[in-house]
């Protein structure tokens, strides 16, 4: 049955010139569909009137239209790209989905008004935010990264040193571990009232809060990592003439690294969570402050635009940590095949 259908289907194709048939067969079809979806978004943006004014949709239409042209070109280029081909083919469905999503988003907000102003914004509403408020957003990104960087890295450094000490020294562990276990589960934000009293500026208090959030999981996981190292490694080290300092540097530190990375990932997520809260306290700039400020003025387009920036920033940092982990833990089974 299927054989018969196939034979029937190839009938019209056979009448086409052979080269056209070949080109069609080689074409990256999903690229064509993506081009179609993106073009639809552009057309919808330009052709239909906005039910509520959201500013000009022209730039957005140009971008999506450009995207459509790009995908159209890629549909014919990708088959000849070599190694890069696999990446495009893998993400093909995503390119289509994004185009469809943008079109639907455009229709439901600006064009039909089903999702009303001010709580929802069409895509070109977000784009307008990036265009008109770019300088302020850039400053906010800078402030946020500064606070996050200072808080996270100081927290991680202190947490790591404390963790190694807890895992290594029985006496330190006797006094330190109960304290860590007691204060560890307290959400870092709960310390806010106290920190304002202890720190001279809100900026320092914010750094402390972010540092606390990221440092505690690192300390706990580092301590358990050092504690879980096979004792015979230390025996080997001592037999070979190693002193305590060598045992810490060359056995405790690298041996605990897999645990430390678990702590770093946990600390990273906590630090993001706390970061926004910390920025809402008496800060003058920063993405968290910006979100709060815009919410007060019902600038939801600005809020969404900022959320998107935060998503990209945070996932980018997480990605970096993954890269660092894969570099440092090549020795673990399964990473190298």
């Amino acid at each position: 049955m299927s054989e018969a259908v196939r034979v029937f289907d190839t009938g019209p194709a056979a009448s086409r010139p052979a080269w056209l048939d070949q080109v069609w067969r080689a074409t990256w079809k999903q690229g064509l569909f993506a081009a179609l979806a993106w073009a639809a978004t552009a057309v919808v943006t330009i052709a239909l009137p906005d039910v509520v004014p959201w500013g000009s949709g022209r730039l957005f239409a140009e971008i999506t239209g450009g995207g459509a042209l790009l995908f159209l070109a890629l549909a014919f280029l990708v088959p000849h790209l070599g190694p890069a081909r696999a990446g495009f083919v893998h993400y093909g469905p995503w390119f289509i989905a994004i185009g469809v999503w943008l079109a639907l988003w455009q229709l439901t907000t600006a064009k039909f008004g089903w999702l009303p102003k001010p709580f929802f914004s069409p895509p070109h509403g977000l784009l307008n935010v990036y265009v008109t408020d770019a300088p302020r957003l850039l400053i906010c990104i800078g402030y946020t990264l500064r606070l996050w960087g200072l808080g996270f890295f100081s927290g991680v450094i202190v947490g790591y040193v404390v963790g190694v000490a807890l895992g290594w020294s029985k006496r330190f562990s006797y006094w330190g571990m109960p304290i860590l276990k007691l204060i560890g589960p307290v959400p870092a934000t709960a310390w806010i009232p106290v920190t304002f009293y202890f720190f001279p500026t809100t900026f320092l208090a914010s750094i402390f809060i972010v540092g606390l959030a990221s440092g505690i999981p690192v300390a706990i996981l580092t301590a358990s990592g050092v504690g879980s190292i096979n004792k015979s490694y230390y025996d080997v080290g001592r037999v070979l003439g190693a002193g305590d300092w060598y045992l810490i540097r060359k056995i405790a530190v690298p041996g605990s690294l897999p645990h430390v990375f678990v702590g770093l990932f946990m600390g990273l997520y906590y630090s993001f969570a706390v970061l926004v809260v910390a920025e809402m306290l008496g800060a003058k700039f920063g993405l968290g402050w910006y979100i709060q400020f815009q919410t007060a003025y019902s600038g939801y387009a600005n809020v969404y635009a900022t959320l998107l920036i935060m998503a990209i920033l945070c996932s980018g940092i997480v990605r970096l940590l993954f890269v660092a982990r894969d570099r440092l833990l090549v020795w673990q089974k399964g990473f190298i095949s």
Partner: protein
Amino acid sequence: MSLARSSREPVSQPSLSLEIDNVSHEFDLVGSRLKVLDSIHLSVASGEFVALLGPSGCGKSTLLRLISGLETPTSGSILADGAPILRPDPSRILVFQDPTLFPWATVRANVGTGLEARGLLKARRGRVDEALALTDLTAFASAYPHQLSGGMAQRASLARALVNDPALLLLDEPLGKLDSLTRLTLQEELVKLWRRRGFTALLVTHDVEEALLLAGRIIVFSERPAHVKAEFRVEKPYPRHRDDPEIVALRREILETLGLKT
């Protein structure tokens, strides 16, 4: 002869003698004490190859840990060249049953551990390469331990011991977990190494044949708490063959001492 020392390097003593005098040792268990060694007397001459044989769990490995200096005996004394053993020292190297290579370090870094720990790595880097060549691991110098086979890992563990020029090599069933073919090869290599380098060797094993092929003297331990039950001299030139009638006869005698009828 690749490991012949160059004249520039400080010549460490090639071997040392051991005097184990009335050594007893107990372990703290929860709520009780477990006696593992019971008045052990044993002298090992400089450059001798002695095998310690006994039922598993009898305390042979504990004796090696005491000699290495990782633990101190509950009573009695152990003297190395007349001086009491108080702490581990690179002149006495213990090779464990498991290779216990550091998984985070390459084979080369693992082999260089002893030199690095003593700040000698820069001056004697060549020794690491020699030890790698001697144990046939040059091609795997940059590999990580999880990429090695069991036999290669144990050879790396031996190389890690040998770069330190130990005067006493303590071998705690180092070949126990290897397949029989690898074990035979490594047994041969061990004898060659010992004859070439002249260190004192103490081998814990529960393989009678291994003891007979390698050692000049075999000490048989009793069940726990271990005491010296019997002693055999193996005066056969190397390389020895397992089918040699004298070896076969000794083997039967030792197995009988261990309580096995053959």
